[in-house]
């Protein structure tokens, strides 16, 4: 078989058993991999109404046909389950070495079911799959856990230096153990499958980490053609301005771009501009200030991830990030304007295993509640106006569920409602809004609101590439874009590279070379649309309706940025029409027939 391994590894934690299943052909051909396979399996196997933190939820780690093949930027893996934060489907993706290792070990999917009786970690070494005790790891920070696991593996599996660097580890920090609803699954020292709180799902199953080591191979249908195509692509890529910028600055070129165009989330989205960020508008300044080296994920030559230096002796010498989203949400959005502070906050979130974006909106919400006098100081124990460094204390409290952190760990909606002002939490479906202020571009508001997983920055393209914010077409474009990225996430290709600089034919080109099946752009568009619709059906069954496709009143009623509000109701109707959904956002019969989803739609429409 080419591209895929055709094998699913299932682990039943309750019984402590594991077995391998053969992958049905239709799952490979019609759902590609990653995100597509995940939604198909979750739709078939779990009841969308279950409690996400119960043992009935299933946690899937998924790779795609392109993972580990050397297709540029095809390092990522998808983690999927029902989200404890939004109650929707969740499918965050994460870079690093884990995905490729799972693939080389011989599996396309790892499905984790049930609940382990005690703390445990899963070790996958080719065909040897073990559930090992993890009492000694419980409570450890994310990179501490990785370090301890590498020591374990050096002893138990007799691995050499190179192999230890090659293994992939996905783990949770204390936040995941304590079931913080926006906890991440961390990987490779600072990458995260972050956005939907799946760290809490892993924690609820008592799984501290999954380690993967594969020494097998992936077969490529047209190896010669593929090798030449990639080589040609690199020669072209050397002159692609966008790619050169990505390699040089990663996402660090974005704070300047956002701040200059008045679309940087600032002070709990009260503003779209931060005075303190003016000094970081030139990415070269940030690079000189904190960069140690560029890092690439497995098989990604663009190296947009940066390792940075924290001078504070209390912190380790270097750490990953911060990316633009973390800079904006933990920085300008919380009133922090110093890069050192932002690095500290980012480091703490990563180590504790919390999503920097939702955490940022939680903290800024607490800050605004405090400034307005709704949140009394006695509940906090310290002052917390915008920019106050007490937020570091609060970060730790949330992860360990101490004091007020216990309430905040339940998510923004519960927290803001407790203090009587639910409108001050800047989130959609419980998930914090990412860095770009939705009032800056209508397209953004629409994309955040209609996203199947909540306010997510990775499931639809930021509209900053030519033609995409064209007012006449952006609604249509949003739909196309979402379908396109559903395929990129199924490949699994990195959306950072493939949503901007490499938009277009590359997906079908790589897929055809590797799998030997001819994929055209049209087929992929249809498959992407089907994935998106199936996710929508899952959400509808879980009780999420068009009422949840909305934006906070601050975005729709108060003209904060560029003196505009987002007319979300009008945009939604237009969007539903493009999608072939009715006025309530439910896919209609014709659309489902066209996509071959009538059976799945039964009971919903």
């Amino acid at each position, binding site marked *: 078989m080419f591209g895929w391994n055709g094998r699913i590894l299932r682990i039943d934690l309750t019984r402590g058993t594991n077995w391998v299943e053969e992958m049905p052909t239709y799952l490979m051909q019609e759902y590609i991999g990653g995100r597509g396979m995940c939604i198909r399996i979750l739709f078939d196997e779990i009841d969308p109404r279950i409690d996400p933190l119960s043992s009935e939820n299933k946690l899937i780690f998924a790779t795609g046909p392109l993972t580990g093949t*050397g297709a540029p930027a095809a390092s990522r893996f998808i983690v999927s389950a029902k989200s404890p934060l939004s109650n929707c489907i969740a499918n965050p993706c994460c870079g690093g070495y884990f995905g490729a290792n799972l693939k080389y070990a011989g599996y396309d999917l790892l499905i984790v079911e049930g609940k382990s009786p005690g703390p445990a970690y899963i070790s996958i070494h080719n065909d040897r799959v073990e559930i090992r005790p993890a009492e000694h790891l419980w409570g450890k920070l994310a990179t501490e856990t990785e370090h301890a696991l590498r020591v374990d593996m050096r002893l138990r599996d007799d691995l050499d230096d190179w192999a230890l660097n090659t293994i992939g580890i996905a783990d949770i920090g204390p936040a995941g153990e304590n079931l913080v609803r926006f906890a991440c699954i961390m990987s490779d020292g600072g990458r995260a499958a972050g956005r939907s709180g799946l760290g809490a799902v892993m924690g609820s199953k008592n799984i501290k980490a999954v380690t993967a080591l594969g020494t097998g191979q992936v077969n490529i249908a047209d190896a010669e053609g593929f090798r030449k195509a990639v080589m040609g692509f690199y020669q072209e890529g050397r002159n692609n301005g966008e790619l050169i910028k990505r*390699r040089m600055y990663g996402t660090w070129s974005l704070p300047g771009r956002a701040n200059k165009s008045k679309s940087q989330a600032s002070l709990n989205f009260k503003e779209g501009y931060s005075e303190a960020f003016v000094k970081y508008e030139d990415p070269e300044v940030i690079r000189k200030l904190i960069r140690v080296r560029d890092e690439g994920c497995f098989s990604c030559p663009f190296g947009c991830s940066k390792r940075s230096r924290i001078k504070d002796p209390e912190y380790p010498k270097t750490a990953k990030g911060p990316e633009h989203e973390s800079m904006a949400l933990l920085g300008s959005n919380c009133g922090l304007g110093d890069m050192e502070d932002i690095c500290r906050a980012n480091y703490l979130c990563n180590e504790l295993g919390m999503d920097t974006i939702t955490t940022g909106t939680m903290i800024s919400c607490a800050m605004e509640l405090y400034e307005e006098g709704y949140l009394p100081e006695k509940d906090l124990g310290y002052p917390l106006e915008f920019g106050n460094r007490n937020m570091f204390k609060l970060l730790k409290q949330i992860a360990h569920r101490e004091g007020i952190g216990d309430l905040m760990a339940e998510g923004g909606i519960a927290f803001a409602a407790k203090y009587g002002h639910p409108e001050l939490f800047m989130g959609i479906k419980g998930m914090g809004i990412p860095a770009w202020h939705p009032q800056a571009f209508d397209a953004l508001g629409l994309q955040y609101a209609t996203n199947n997983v909540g306010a997510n920055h990775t499931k639809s393209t930021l509209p900053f590439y030519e033609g995409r914010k064209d007012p006449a077409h952006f609604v249509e474009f949003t739909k196309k874009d979402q379908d396109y990225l559903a395929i990129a996430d199924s490949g699994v290709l990195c959306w950072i590279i493939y949503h901007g600089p490499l938009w277009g034919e590359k997906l079908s080109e790589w897929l055809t070379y590797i799998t030997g099946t001819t994929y055209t752009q049209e087929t992929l568009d249809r498959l992407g649309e089907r994935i998106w619709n199936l996710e929508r059906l899952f959400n509808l069954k879980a009780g999420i309706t068009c009422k949840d496709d909305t934006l906070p009143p601050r975005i729709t009623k108060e003209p904060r940025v560029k003196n505009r509000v987002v007319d979300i109701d009008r945009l939604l109707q237009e969007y539903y029409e493009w999608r072939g959904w009715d006025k309530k956002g439910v896919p209609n019969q014709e659309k489902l027939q066209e996509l071959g989803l009538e059976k799945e739609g039964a009971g919903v429409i």
Partner: protein
Amino acid sequence: MRIKIDYKKCIGCKQCEIVCSLAHTGTVNPWRSRIRIFIREEFCLPVIAGPYTEAACNSKGMVMVDGLEVDGCVVCRASCPTKSVYKEPDTGIPLKCDFCGEPPDPQCVQWCAPEALTLIEE
């Protein structure tokens, strides 16, 4: 002719390992590669497989490379009885870089987008 390594430019993406195995075996498997990337916190070190030596050496220890302290066993290019890298995983046959044939056209250099590997005349 030789492959010059500028480790400061290496980002640890392992594309060289991938294309090496692809070019030599037709499959993708870094464990069958003739070049290996050793990743450290502050830098990555590409090392290209050299000739096989039958005996393990007795001069193990740390060596200084460009002011950095590195395990001598890591920067040593030899495939030897005590190391598990640079060997075919199934058969144990030692691997050695062959510059991808004659005339030399090393694929790792071709795929190295950050240009940490370059082919130079010498």
